């Protein structure tokens, strides 16, 4: 009886942790949207013995590859934002792993897991 009671308490704590991780994941995903996605690409243009460098932010949008020009003066800021986005991605990855681990422990059916994933 005692073991069963402890098991229920631990199960409850794991459920709490699972909920907490999912909430954090959602908040991190929301925050990450504030930063630009994609990678920086440099195009060189040759004109009258001069080389001009143009920076583009390359990303995928609905299957299409989109190149967005980044003005020279905004380059440091965009680089900083991209670094920030990388940090968020790393953190999101760790929470995804933890959620997957907790879902295995809690024996949440795969169907429900994917349903939750789509709803979030």
């Amino acid at each position: 009886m005692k073991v069963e009671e402890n098991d229920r308490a631990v199960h409850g704590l794991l459920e709490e942790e699972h909920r907490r991780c999912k909430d954090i994941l959602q908040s991190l995903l929301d925050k990450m949207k504030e930063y630009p996605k994609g990678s920086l690409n440099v195009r060189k243009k040759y004109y009258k013995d001069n080389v001009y460098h143009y920076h583009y932010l390359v990303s995928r949008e609905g299957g299409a590859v989109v190149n967005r020009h980044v003005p020279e003066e905004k380059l440091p800021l965009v680089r900083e934002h991209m670094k920030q986005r990388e940090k968020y991605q790393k953190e999101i990855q760790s929470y995804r792993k933890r959620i997957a681990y907790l879902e295995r422990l809690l024996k949440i059916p795969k169907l429900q897991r994917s349903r939750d994933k789509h709803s979030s």
Partner: protein
Amino acid sequence: MPIFQEIYHATYVLKTLDVDFAVHVAHSNSCLRADLEQIITSLGFVDYVSAGGVQKFSSGGYEVEFIAHRKGSRNDDAMQVREWNIVAQPLPLISLLLDFSEEALLDDFIIRYPVPEAFFIHKLIVAQKRRSPAKQSKDLEQCAVLMNILRDDPLLHIMESVRLGRGTKGHLRTSCTALNFPLHRLGL
């Protein structure tokens, strides 16, 4: 609990990755004293805002947030602490933890933490306010661990110093009964 384990040898096996810092601004002043947001993010943490509007920080699975004493009802919004550039979550009875605290040097850091007696009383009360049964049993388990290191004088001193309502005293009685903790040790 890890601090009580280190200092008082109160063994508790469960560990949390959720680190809460209680804040209290004694002399409010709108000018910035220390930019905690900048300090914490420079340590590799990322910041985000939770659904409740509270600012939190996360790194390597650790979640850092700030809590403050709440005077009114549950509807209180997140509390802006301009002096430290953070947004704290107001929670009830946090002053109990702040008012009865002590300092210790752990791993070259000076840490201010509530005395075990204050933490115990706080947990006894909040356990009965919990909506989640799992959290309630976790609170009571922590109390059960702390029961072995409690000193009677500080317990009574805290109980005499704070003004508790009838409902709160009821919560204390319910928790004590669940733990078989003698009510007279709390002066009830």
